[in-house]
């Protein structure tokens, strides 16, 4: 049995290596966590994710910028790749599946990839359509995968407007699907006006929004089921 002291040491190492974008350090610590028999879930959430939370704070404080954020994300994934196969049970209270992509006309995918990472960490099934995605593709993929959530991302004002059409089409095919839009130019006003369920200017925000939306959706379904019976 691993001592509490050792456990704390490994968690601290995972966290710090994410913050210091030290991929090799993260890999080492992740392997050590498995070797001493630590719970992979704990290593992910109390190690990797708590490191990423601190990265988010540093980004907010303008001590870190996008290059650092990308390197920290690489470090987190390096650890996640090792730990994820050993996760027994994700317990976030809610699990869901999500279709995610950058809308047609937009070839930027950095923001989308960070949001995707948060979903990966949280144990969502992620269907990543990539970037410059034709509008119909979002609708097709949502139906095909029966996903709870569709996340649309746009980096520029000039591409953001395309999201409005995707939202309309998704609603037409599936009124219940939850839709989140994100990216630098997106505002609450735009999200409301176009009928999106949520909006997220950044990744931390996106995950919390997503979890709220998926739980709301599941609750709605359960209630509908209960009525039928």
């Amino acid at each position, binding site marked *: 049995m691993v001592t509490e002291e050792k456990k704390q040491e490994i968690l601290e190492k995972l966290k710090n290596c994410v913050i210091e974008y030290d991929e090799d350090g993260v890999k080492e610590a992740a392997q050590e966590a498995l070797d001493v028999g630590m719970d992979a879930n704990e290593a992910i959430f109390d190690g990797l994710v708590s490191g990423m939370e601190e990265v988010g704070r540093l980004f907010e404080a303008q001590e870190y*910028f996008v290059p650092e954020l990308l390197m920290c994300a690489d470090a987190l994934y390096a650890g996640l790749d090792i730990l994820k196969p050993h996760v027994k049970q994700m317990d976030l209270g809610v699990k869901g599946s999500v279709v995610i992509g950058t809308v047609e006309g937009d070839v*930027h995918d950095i923001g989308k990839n960070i949001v995707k990472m948060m979903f990966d960490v949280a144990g969502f099934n992620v269907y990543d359509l990539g970037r410059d995605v034709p509008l119909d593709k979002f609708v097709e993929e949502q139906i095909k995968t029966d996903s709870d959530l569709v996340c649309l991302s746009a980096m*520029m*004002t000039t591409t953001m*407007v*395309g999201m409005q059409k995707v939202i309309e089409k998704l609603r037409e095919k599936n009124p219940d699907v939850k839709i989140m839009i994100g990216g*630098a*130019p997106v505002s609450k006003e735009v999200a409301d*006006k176009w009928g999106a369920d949520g909006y997220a200017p950044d990744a931390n925000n996106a995950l919390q929004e997503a979890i709220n939306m998926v739980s709301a959706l599941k609750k709605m379904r359960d209630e509908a089921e209960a009525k039928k019976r």
Partner: protein
Amino acid sequence: MPVSTMTPRERILKLFNGEEIDRVPCFSGMGNVTAEGMKDLGYKFAAIHLDAKMMAESAATTYKYFGFECGVVPFDLCVEAEALGCQINVYAHSEDILYPTIKEKVIHNEDEMDISIPADFNKLGRIPLMKEAIRLLKENIGNEAPVGSYVLGPFTLAGQIMELNDLLKLSFKKPDKVGKLLDVLADAIVIVAREYEDAGVDYITVREMGATSDVLSPRVFKNLILPYLKKIFSELKGNTVIHICGKTNDIVPFMMESGARAISVDQKNDIVETRKKLGNDALIFGNYDPYNVLVAGDEETVRSTMRKCIDDGVSAIWPGCDIWPTVPPENMRAMMDEIKNYGG
């Protein structure tokens, strides 16, 4: 108030010269074609990037219809990257307004960053078409309105010809390597901008939005980007503007130091603070939100935003980005009307 006798071109050239003018001008260094203008010409957005005549005619309509005080070509951000060998996508199939993007980049990994400028670069891609469009646009409205064009800044152009993800990480891990690429790209940008100057543009905007403080730290901007912006502006003879959107308050002194005649910032900039930092003589262009105000806002929002820009102390009313083509005509008219009344 005396009726103005200055043409927009006189007004704006005087502004660049630091001379007295009758009121604050309202123009842009970025794309400003409107759906209204294209509709009457019968042109689709996807087509106007590939034909000099259609490009020039479309660009002229914003001045002709609304009195917006300039004509600007092109409308997309791919001209230099295409001439450097990238494939572009104009979304010809689409009825929607989609801006052209890069389909195939020329640098696929770190080892391919050692590029040189192709021979006869000024004859490649759409550079000759751009020169022709500038000439036609000048013929069309150039006596009354100034004609402008834009090029990308070196960092933003680097993000077009290689993966932005890689570029950003390398700018941290291997700044020397990135610097070498930016140096080559600065030379390429100067070649393109000089061609536009030859064709007769009244001003050129260098769009370096990839280096916004939302993405890069002011320190990296100063050390890695600024030297190459300086190189570009020292080589250009005409009126120049440096444009960066997003967070810019910490880098406006560097933008000024780049050697551009004027700086252009968007709605995230605190103009009052910027004016205080840069002094009364600095040319500061900005800073209304071209989508949330001009397209999605109502007329009163447009008018109050214009008054705020003027009160904050901009030297010219100028959008934070390209004007989205579906802008309501009444908002364009309200903008021009408010500036004519309030901007004296």
